[in-house]
């Protein structure tokens, strides 16, 4: 009986299965090709909502049996391609032809547009770490020095600031996590190079745009440098560093969904000055103490909240005198700088993204003996930047971004010759804007962007529309790109304090470029034309907005990492032709800081036997114009060319210790940046002149970075 029962169950199951296997089946078969007709292998072919499917063979063919009936949807899916769908009767799918189109690169992540250098390598290939910047010879661990090697950026050995495509250093702005940084450079004595206030090791992505940047950014006529910090830092670590000019330490504490990083640095040039004196007569050496901290939290549902706080204090005292003035005075400098930024970013469903942020910058300077013995200059600048932005992606073809931002600025300056306040003033104003950005794919290879910003400046109560349009065409590894846009920026505070009704300075930029990226090679060629108007002028204390000018030129860039194993080289050449009438220029002239030819060559070689990266950089720039009051005309002369040969070596002593040494301008060339002339005629009836040099020609640095905790090795980054 029992056996019988078992048999029955068996029979039942058997029958049941047989019924299934004898159900009507159809064959789905065909071929899958790409948009050029080439057969595609390994494509995932399946019937939507079922498990039935297969992978295509080498010749693009495929076939499988299906039990599905009626109308079905056949899908073909492959990495890097848009999926293809085919609807039809299950019975009629035995000879199908499927075509897969490459995914539209444009809306994925456009990383090639005119003027844009994304050092992070959003091609994800070069997850270029800040270490790369630190180890490039000539960069000396400074972001701006590293960026200065890219085409379009002019050599500025005496100021260390970015001057891009014929624009002066004011025209370039820095952003951290999309929020504006009011004073990104450290303050240094005259003619010595400033550095970035914030350590490169803080940033994950360094994204430099030498022009034609997105409507996301404003108040910059030339270029923007958006820096992004890490979203998460999953490793707990701690480390210290000892440098020839100071010391530092910091670390990160990581939790499951959040992390806290901190960093402290102390810089003192005193001991270095004793060994290698510069042109100054120091009383108290240049000292800078800084502390930074960042808290990051990944919230549930894809939200990321980051807060960054940095404070630094700089001080020095020196004996100084103006050129051709024998009177020596004591100059005391003190500066306190605070920067706070807090951002929130969230990816909502259905293609929506949201961003909001606030940044507070405050900078306070006090200079005793600024211009005359026992005078005092007090300058307090502050800014609150608020930004909100939303993004919606409608299919793969169209993306809309809309945002609003506000910059509330304040500057108060007083120049005292005790007990009287001689000059000074205070301005408090706001810049409010709305922006709208449309990104669309016209076809798989053609991408467009049309955007606009409406900006209101409270000082002159002016509303301005700033349009921008770009077009990118892609052919395999080649890109062609064209951009036109209008940008504006308020004049410098020193002008606004005198005349609050000055117009914003404006610049039309037109850029055409060609790019090629393949097999570790990057080649870029760009031609630009910039037209400036409403530049602020100051002739005999008449402050007006009637200046104008132009800058045009060619940028060439070549980067290759594959030609010789372990060798990376970079070549950048820029030709710039610019003239402007601004400031106290009586006529339109080539600006004093501009150079016509700029060339930089950087080599980096990883030498495995001694575990070292060796870097060599050479930088050349043709002479700068200067004005000689002894002769007719304006800016009649040109200085001798600039050249600097820099070396660096980074040596991994062991897993926990890295030694970095660098030397700039090892040939000791005495570069001349300008000439200054006495304000009165000498006995021979001529104005006496003398060259302007950097406070020192060469600089050597050696640093040792030690990781104290855990397993992390050759990691100089505390963040």
């Amino acid at each position, binding site marked *: 009986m029992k056996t019988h029962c078992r048999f029955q169950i068996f029979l*039942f199951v058997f029958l049941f299965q047989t019924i299934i296997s004898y159900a009507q089946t159809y064959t789905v078969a065909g071929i899958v090709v790409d948009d050029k007709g080439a057969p595609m292998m390994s494509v995932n072919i399946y019937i939507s909502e079922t498990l039935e499917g297969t992978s295509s063979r080498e010749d693009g063919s495929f076939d499988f049996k299906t039990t599905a009936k009626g109308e079905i949807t056949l899908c073909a899916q492959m990495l890097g391609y848009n999926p293809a769908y085919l609807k039809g009767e299950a019975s009629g799918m035995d000879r199908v032809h499927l075509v897969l189109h490459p995914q539209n690169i444009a809306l994925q992540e456009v990383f090639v547009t005119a003027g844009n250098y994304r050092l992070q390598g959003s091609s994800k290939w070069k997850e270029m770490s800040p270490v790369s910047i630190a180890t490039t010879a000539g960069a000396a661990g400074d972001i701006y020095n590293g960026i200065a090697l890219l085409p379009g950026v002019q050599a500025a050995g005496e100021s260390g600031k970015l001057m891009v495509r014929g624009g002066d250093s004011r025209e370039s702005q820095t952003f951290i996590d999309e929020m504006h940084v009011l004073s990104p450079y450290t303050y240094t004595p005259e003619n010595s190079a400033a550095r970035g206030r914030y350590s490169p090791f803080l940033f994950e992505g360094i994204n430099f745009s030498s022009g034609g940047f997105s409507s996301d950014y404003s108040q910059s006529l030339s270029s923007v440098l958006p820096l992004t910090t890490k979203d998460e830092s999953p490793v707990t670590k701690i480390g210290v560093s000892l440098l020839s000019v100071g010391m530092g330490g910091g670390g990160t504490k990581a939790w499951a969904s959040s992390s806290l990083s901190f960093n402290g640095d102390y810089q003192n040039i005193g001991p270095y000055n004793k060994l290698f004196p510069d042109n100054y007569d120091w009383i108290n050496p240049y000292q800078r103490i800084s502390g930074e901290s960042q808290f990051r939290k990944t919230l549930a549902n894809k939200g990321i909240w980051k807060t960054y706080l940095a404070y630094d204090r700089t001080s020095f005292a020196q004996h100084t005198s103006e050129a051709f003035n024998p009177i020596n005075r004591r100059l005391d400098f003190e500066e306190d700088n605070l920067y706070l930024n807090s951002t929130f970013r969230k990816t909502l469903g259905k293609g929506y993204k949201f961003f909001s942020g606030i940044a507070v910058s405050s900078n306070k300077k006090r200079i005793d003996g600024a211009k005359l013995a026992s005078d005092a200059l007090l300058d307090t600048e502050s800014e609150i930047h608020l930004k909100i932005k939303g993004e919606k992606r409608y299919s793969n073809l169209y993306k809309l971004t809309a945002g609003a931002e506000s910059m509330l600025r304040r500057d108060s300056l007083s120049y005292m010759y005790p007990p009287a306040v001689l000059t000074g003033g205070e301005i408090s104003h706001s810049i409010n804007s709305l922006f709208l950005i449309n990104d669309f794919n016209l076809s798989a290879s053609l991408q467009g962007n049309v955007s606009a910003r409406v900006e209101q400046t409270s000082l002159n109560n002016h509303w301005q529309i700033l349009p921008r349009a770009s077009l990118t065409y892609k052919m395999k590894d080649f890109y062609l790109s064209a951009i036109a846009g209008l940008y504006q920026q308020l004049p410098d505070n020193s002008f606004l304090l005198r005349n609050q009704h000055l117009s914003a300075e404006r610049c039309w930029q037109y850029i055409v470029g060609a790019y090629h990226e393949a097999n570790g090679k990057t080649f870029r060629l760009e031609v630009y034309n910039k037209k400036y108007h409403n530049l602020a002028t100051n002739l005999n204390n008449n402050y007006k907005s009637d200046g104008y000018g132009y800058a045009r030129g060619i940028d060439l860039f070549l980067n290759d990492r594959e030609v010789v194993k372990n060798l990376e080289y970079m070549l950048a050449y820029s030709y710039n032709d610019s003239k402007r009438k601004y400031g106290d220029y009586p006529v339109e002239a080539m600006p004093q800081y501009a150079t016509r030819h700029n060339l930089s060559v950087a080599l980096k070689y990883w030498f495995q*036997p001694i575990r070292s990266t060796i870097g060599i950089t050479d930088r050349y720039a043709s002479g700068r114009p200067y004005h000689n009051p002894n002769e007719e005309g304006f800016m009649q002369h040109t200085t001798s060319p600039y050249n600097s040969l820099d070396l660096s070596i980074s040596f991994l002593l062991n897993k926990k210790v890295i030694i970095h040494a660098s030397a700039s301008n090892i040939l000791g060339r005495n570069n001349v940046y300008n000439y200054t002339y006495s304000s009165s005629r000498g006995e021979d009836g001529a104005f006496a002149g003398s060259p302007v040099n950097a406070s020192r020609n060469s600089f050597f640095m050696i640093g040792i970075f030690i990781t104290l905790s855990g397993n992390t090795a050759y990691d100089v980054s505390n963040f």
Partner: protein
Amino acid sequence: MKKMKLFLLILSLSGLGFINAQNAQPEFSDIMTRAYTSLQNAESPQDLVNARNTMERISMKFTDQWLPVYYTSYVDIILSFVNENKETKLTYITEAKELVKKLNNYPDADKSEVSTLTGFALNAQIAADPENNGPALFGELIGAYKVAIAIDPSNPRPVYLLARFNRDMAKFMGQTSPEFCKELLKAKELYEARKDKPFYPSWGKEEVTRLLLECNKQ
């Protein structure tokens, strides 16, 4: 006999009812068995791609199951090692990393295995371009394996992969790694003690055994 027939009928009906109600489960384990077997028997990159595609299809049908996503990502990583073309490597790694991110949203996913896979994907990225990606990513990689070990100290995979990565890094730094064989032995013990649930990740054991043979030769 009548009773018996009735019983059978009820049994079969309730059985069918069970199949209907829990439609997903038997079908899932059925197809998963096939996919899992074909993955384990894969002999060529083409076999791997086929197994990967099957896993992807399963993951689209059974959206609440984490294992098919895990294996799609895992095979992507393997394929990135196998493939010579840099662009193709990048495509696989990018997708593998996206899938690992997705895995974090599955409440029942094995957190230790997911963290191991995070580290493994970074390992692939470093292997693709050691000079540039090494310094940038190795801290995160070691961190991921350590998290995996902390969540589940009995998981042999992160122990094995961490030992292996430490050895490779020591080689790169021109140093020796005396702990390597000891760590491998530990991983082997863990592999032997491990009782794997159906379809759970179980890979790595053969490789540990092979590496241990090299250890013994020295």
